[in-house]
């Protein structure tokens, strides 16, 4: 019966979804062949001691005292690769393979924030083409 118990598994290791692409731990996940739940802790708040110079410059430019919407951005994992979710394209953006992954989630989250921001601010971002095609004003 739906809605009576949590059928997913807990995140136990920072490299869990790199080492185990499928992420099937609980009985239910193995039964259906699908991971249940997020592949990162959505409630983890950022450690500002680990902020990068690029992110600091972004905060200053926007006139914010903290990371604002980027507090919700985390390094996730898609098909066994580190990736960050871009809400503007509703899809995952893979982290380039030459980017070295730090050994903890807080530093990885800062890498994800910087990578996502650079992607969104790039003229190559798909939203630039969509805007040109569909904008009304």
């Amino acid at each position: 019966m739906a809605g009576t118990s949590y059928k997913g598994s807990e995140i136990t290791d920072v490299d869990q979804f790199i080492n185990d692409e499928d992420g099937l731990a609980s009985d239910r996940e193995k039964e259906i062949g699908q991971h249940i739940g997020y592949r990162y802790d959505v409630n983890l708040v950022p450690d500002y001691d680990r902020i990068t110079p690029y992110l600091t410059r972004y905060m200053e430019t926007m006139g914010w005292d903290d990371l604002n919407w980027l507090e919700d951005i985390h390094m996730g994992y898609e098909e066994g690769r580190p990736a960050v979710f871009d809400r503007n394209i509703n899809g995952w953006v893979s982290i380039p393979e030459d980017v070295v992954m730090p050994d903890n989630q807080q530093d990885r989250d800062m890498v994800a924030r910087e990578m996502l921001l650079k992607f969104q601010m790039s003229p190559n971002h798909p939203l630039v083409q969509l805007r040109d095609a569909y904008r009304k004003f």
Partner: protein
Amino acid sequence: MAGLETEGRSHDMGLHNEQLSGRKMQTFFSPDDSENVVYPWAYDVDFNKRTEIDMADLTPTEVNIKIRELMAEGYGSIVIKNPGSRHSIGVGILNKLNITYEGSLGYFGCGLIDGPNVRINGRVGWSCAENMMAGTVVVEKNAGSTFGAAIRGGDLVCKGSVGSRTGIDQKGGSIIVGGDTGALTGFMMQRGRMVFCGNAGKNLGDSMYDGTIFVGGEIQSLGVDAVHGELNDVDRAWLTRKLKLYDMLPEKGVDHFTKIVAGRQLWNYDNLEPHEKKIVL
């Protein structure tokens, strides 16, 4: 037979049963290519360049267009006088900008924004900052129902009290309220954080999927699948920093706050269940 005909029509219309596995799109991007910190289409505005709009004789549409024109001219600080509680003012601003409203806003004020810092010196009606993506919105007095509906990011602050269904369907960001909140606050919340320095009404966090709710006062009742969490040091540090930012830190600190999280009993999304239901039914 009728079902088969319906299925045939749906196929003719281009609808098919398919596994929802997502689509890949290859976009060539190097992180070294971009050092921008604003969107490529953003207006280049200067916070030190300031102007005013008196909207006593303007419609909301005229004001929204005027704001855009002023951003195009490089104005980074805009003061709106006499907003007169009219609806849908200051919506769809996708730019860095400081904007101040000297008065109150009606329904759906400051919705769909991505970046600006907004200050409202009066009250706001229903659904203030709905679907907000980024930026800060600070309301000095009270707010109506569905404050921050479907907010996705940024800080939405009300220094007074708010109505019911605050942050319904919240998908990110922080909603911070100095006073009380009404019934069904955090209904279907998916992620992000809410902070209430006062009391919360009935069915707090009903059907919440994820995210965190902090309440400094009394909670009338919890909704389905909302459970108590343990307030840890990271939470305390975050609460203290965030409340200080907006001069809302209670004199007694944050240790008395109650933390509410999802019980995860409603986490039932998997590809097999629709098939199981078909077999059962």
